[in-house]
């Protein structure tokens, strides 16, 4: 699943460690989510969305929304 967490984080000037501290997860977790190696659970995805004051679908994209819109 793709996401734009790296962009949102950069806009705020936050490091991966700072974001990890805010979410109370490891820095490796943030890195794994940013690089698409790991898809977060719904509670963590909601926590990320709340932190960036966005809707979940504005941050995460499973690729199906675009495909559905194209149909």
């Amino acid at each position, binding site marked *: 699943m793709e996401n734009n967490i790296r962009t949102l984080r950069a806009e705020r000037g936050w490091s991966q460690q700072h974001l*990890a*501290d805010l*979410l*109370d*997860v*490891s820095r*490796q*977790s943030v890195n*794994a*989510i940013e690089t698409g*190696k*790991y898809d*977060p*659970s719904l509670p*963590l995805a909601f926590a990320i969305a709340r932190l960036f004051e966005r809707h979940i679908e504005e941050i995460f994209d499973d690729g199906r929304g675009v495909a559905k819109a194209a149909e």
Partner: protein
Amino acid sequence: MTQPKGFRTANKRYLMIFVPMMAFYCVAIAVAFTFIDIDTASTGVRMGAAIAIALPLIAILMAILRLVRETDEYTRMRQLQALSEGGVMLTGAIFILGFLERFNVIPDIPLFLFGPGFFFFYGLAHLRQSLGKIV
């Protein structure tokens, strides 16, 4: 059942067990091997020494399990993968060495060595993770 507490709290709670138990283990093993003569000490003394050395290690294993329950979801997944991969590698080693021993190819292996063996394979699994071999 223990609920997830977040990465920092879980790590702190793990270290609060790990550090004193590892110190206790080091002291126990130093005292036991320095002051206890295995050939002449009573069964009670030898049993007490063996249990005193093993108990802190069991406490550390329990702390690892608690860390797995309490830490963040990604770290939990990595820990569980390392634990399961370490366990599988250790079981494989036990089968191979056990049968080699059974057929008198190699001499008897002290059973307690499989404890450090587990931590070795557990560490090896973590190393494989950091090299990107598993998530």
